[in-house]
């Protein structure tokens, strides 16, 4: 992977906002003293009058965005996932979700790849929280290409959207001429017959690596990228489960309530299938380099390979 281009999706987020600024004059971006880290500083530089730093007050930022949305603005609120979804849960639910306002939540620094800051800042619960809010769209892009496409698609979609971005640089895997992003449509990355690996975010690249290793052992793994956790592409999930009869989910998130749970919710009702959920196994993270944490918690290619091997 040495020669693969790597970009953190938070960078993609900031760049996409700046690129969309001219096309969407109502687009405004709010931050809570983290514009440098969330990379919305790029937008701020290009459109200083449309960037609002609210100071370290995420809950108020969320309410301000709600008020702006009632007046026709398309606000993005930016913070770390821990604060954007965690600290803010009730504000997002009541001030944005309940009135179904056109506010986008750009949550960066999600999951354990926050790294050295440790467990207090590693949000492994945000997808679960956001998924419970009626009418909320939840998107977890896997790389730069997808992250930028997701930002534009979120602006074009009327209603609240939660977008999850990471701190660490990740390989660009969707840089293909026929790549097309559509909210709610999963991407079949590799066809297989023995097992389905459903991944989102950083685990998509890991799943592709794992599939290569499994192939060497004679195991044919189908790999699906579910960038939109809600609404879930049930059609794609069901078709693959019916074909392979075994499903593995992989996410940089607790296995309680995230991608794995969303897939199980679908399969248990419509096509009962054995499922192995790879992710944070009901534990907090810890300090360490992002790649070391990914390895320790089994979210890299080798980790997913080993888990799938034990499952099939």
């Amino acid at each position, binding site marked *: 992977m040495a020669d693969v281009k790597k970009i953190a999706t938070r960078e993609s987020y900031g760049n996409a906002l700046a690129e969309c600024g001219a096309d969407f004059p109502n687009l*405004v971006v709010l931050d809570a003293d983290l514009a440098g880290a969330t990379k919305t500083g790029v937008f701020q530089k290009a459109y200083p*009058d*449309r960037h*609002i730093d*609210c*100071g370290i*007050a995420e*809950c*108020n*930022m*969320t*309410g*301000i*965005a*709600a*008020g*702006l*949305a*009632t*007046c*026709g*603005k398309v606000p993005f609120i930016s913070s770390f996932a821990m604060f954007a979804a965690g600290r803010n849960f*009730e*504000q997002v639910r*009541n*001030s944005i979700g*309940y*009135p*179904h306002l056109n506010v986008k939540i750009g949550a960066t620094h999600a999951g354990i790849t926050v790294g050295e800051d440790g467990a207090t800042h590693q949000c492994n619960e945000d997808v679960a929280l956001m998924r419970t809010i009626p009418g909320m769209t939840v998107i977890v892009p896997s790389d730069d290409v997808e992250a930028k496409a997701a930002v534009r698609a979120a602006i074009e979609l009327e209603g609240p959207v939660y977008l999850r971005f990471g701190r660490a640089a990740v390989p660009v895997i969707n840089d293909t001429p026929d790549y097309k992003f559509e909210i709610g449509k999963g991407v079949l990355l590799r066809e297989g017959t023995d097992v389905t690996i459903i991944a989102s975010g950083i685990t998509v690249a890991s799943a592709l690596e794992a599939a290569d290793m499994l192939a060497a052992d004679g195991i044919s793994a189908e790999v699906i990228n579910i960038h939109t956790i809600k609404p879930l592409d049930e059609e794609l999930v069901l078709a693959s489960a019916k074909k392979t009869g075994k499903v593995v989910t992989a996410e940089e998130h607790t296995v309680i309530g995230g991608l794995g749970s969303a897939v199980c919710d679908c399969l248990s009702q419509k096509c009962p299938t054995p499922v192995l959920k790879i992710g944070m196994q009901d534990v907090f993270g810890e300090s360490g380099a992002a790649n070391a944490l990914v390895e320790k918690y089994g979210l890299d290619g080798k980790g997913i390979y080993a888990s799938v091997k034990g499952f099939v």
Partner: protein
Amino acid sequence: MNKLELQKTANEVRKGIVTAVHGAKAGHPGGSLSAADIFTYLYFEEMNIDPKDPKKADRDRFVLSKGHTAPGLYSVLANRGYFPVEDLPTLRHLGSYLQGHPCMQETPGVDMSSGSLGQGISAAVGMALAAKMDGKDYRTYTLLGDGEIQEGQVWEASMFAGHRKLDNLVVIVDNNGLQIDGKIDDVCSPYPIDKKFEAFNFHVINIDGNDFDQIDAAFKEAKATKGMPTAIICKTVKGKGVSFMENNAGWHGKAPNDEEYATAMADLEKIGAELGGAN
């Protein structure tokens, strides 16, 4: 409207509050009645609004941050012509467009869903900010409870409004002195309220919030104030107008039974008669 007309209208708004809460067999009469004069002044005198066009782009905005006093908002909206007064007793009933707390998608004239305390003021700040960004001259008003200002988010929002010099924003505090668990200064005192808003760079006006002369003067002063938001701290009587509800925390969130309803309406009819009958 002159003062007498405002007083008579406020009395009708109070009747609507009591009728709505009685019809619901639940709800929050105390803080609705204390703020009835403020609601009346806003919707009949102060705000640039059109009941025939509730979503008019450049209308003034109102956010009921103390959303539990929805009966007060609904009653004033109904009396102002947004929807029939006869619908007020459907409050909180299954299928009613008058939800227990304000819902902007259900009720004509409601500019923001609210009810989770501390959140409405932030939305109001967002509306005021939008007007500034777009160079529009509409104004935004938000009403908070004196218990509500115990919520930290209120001060996050106030800090931002002061910092941004949002002189198109008026924060109104209904200082009726009581919250569910008792007197606000026994539970967790927010006093001095005026000094706190001053410290957050607001222009602060202290008034008797049940006196239309003082209300009128305060809102005129707010409009004339440039370069900073205004906070109007309104000393009020919780349950105002209904003898047995006045200054009684027990009527924060309780509906009158049939007998109590009759007594309450008799109290308000008497006040109406003293004011010289209907407008």
